[in-house]
């Protein structure tokens, strides 16, 4: 057991073998220089780390529901502020919220938006595994175009999978004019570390969106999460960038991006796209990725 990495999240949690988010949680919390209060939205992380009567958390931890993780964080922050003012506590703890993409993109969006707008001092970390993986792979608004899920199955008529585009959460969060937000990837832990440090230092709300492959429902071998995540960035599907006070900065510019097929073919959920009748869909997806990248680099160069 590695004592340094076990400081906040202990070994013995029941996440699937080969899951990506423990590395995210440990990296982000490892950068904390003050005590932390962890707020957790419902999701894989909450379900697997708090099996009754055990808990994998060694720090203050609160879980309320899917939709109000940020509201809970706001409450803690406000209570802490007033207790500090009255002199009942000597040190303020940093509040770190962890939510999956279901609890962030879909259900928790209103409370996240409210907390960002009110300017509470907290860090929101969204681990994006593109669906409701803990309840059995239902689609969410973070599921990429073309992915097969339980609620977007392949049939006789419908041959693409999910036909809608992903939600661009980074732009939504950026619209709140917060001081720091960034998109990171679990395969690039040094980059994630740097971003976590910056985000924890910011006074006021900060946001991190971290790519977290799901071995079970993306249907790739247990050992491959790092390789899948590397490909997501190398194909420009998941660019690494940060927005500091409205200023975009791309942290990893891929000079020679790989075709999107290389990322798609690693996963079983995109298997149907390689059938003969879906050739056009693949071309369309490549266009969409290039379009997104063009938009992002235009923003970064201004």
């Amino acid at each position: 057991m590695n004592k340094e990495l076990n400081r906040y999240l202990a070994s013995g949690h029941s996440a699937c073998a080969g899951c990506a988010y423990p590395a995210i949680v440990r990296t982000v919390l490892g950068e904390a220089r003050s005590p932390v209060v962890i707020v957790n939205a419902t999701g894989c992380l909450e379900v697997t780390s708090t099996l009754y009567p055990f808990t994998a958390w060694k720090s203050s931890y609160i879980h309320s529901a899917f939709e109000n993780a940020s509201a809970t964080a706001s409450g803690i922050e406000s209570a802490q502020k007033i207790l500090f003012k009255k002199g009942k506590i000597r040190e303020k703890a940093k509040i770190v919220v962890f939510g999956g993409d279901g609890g962030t993109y879909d259900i928790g969006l209103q409370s996240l938006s409210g907390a960002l707008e009110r300017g509470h001092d907290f860090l929101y970390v969204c681990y994006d595994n593109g669906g409701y993986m803990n309840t059995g792979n239902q689609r969410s608004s973070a599921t990429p175009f073309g992915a097969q899920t339980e609620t977007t199955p392949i049939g006789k008529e419908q041959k693409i999978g999910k036909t809608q585009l992903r939600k661009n959460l980074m732009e939504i969060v950026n619209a709140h004019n917060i001081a720091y937000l960034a998109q990171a990837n679990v395969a690039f832990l040094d980059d994630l570390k740097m971003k976590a440090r910056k985000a924890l230092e910011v006074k006021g709300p900060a946001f991190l969106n971290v790519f977290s492959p799901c071995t079970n429902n993306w249907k790739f071998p247990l050992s491959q999460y790092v390789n899948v995540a590397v490909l997501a960035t190398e194909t420009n599907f998941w660019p690494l960038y940060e927005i500091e006070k409205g200023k975009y900065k791309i942290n990893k510019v891929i000079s020679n991006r790989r075709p999107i097929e290389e990322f798609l073919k690693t996963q079983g959920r995109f298997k149907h796209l390689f059938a003969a009748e879906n050739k056009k869909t693949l071309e369309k997806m490549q266009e969409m990725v290039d379009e997104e990248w063009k938009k992002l680099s235009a923003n970064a160069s201004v």
Partner: protein
Amino acid sequence: MEKGAVIKYDALKAPRTGNWRYLYPEMKKEKCIGCGRCVSFCPEACIELRKEKGSDNKTVKNKARVDYDFCKGCGVCASVCPVRAIIMKKSE
């Protein structure tokens, strides 16, 4: 207001996830360069670097060591190792 109770963490009572394992990672100590890539990517945080004496009994180098009590046998360590010092083998 009543003061809350503090529940102390007891590592000995933690569930052992080692019995999930189907494959187990075998470390080749002579190959390991102590880069720590497997340590940071391991989902269980059950790998740590320990200083160990080399074969000539003089040089001290970092070597990765797995805690088999918690290792779920996913094989992430083997797939990220740059020198292939970790090999997944079938458990008996």
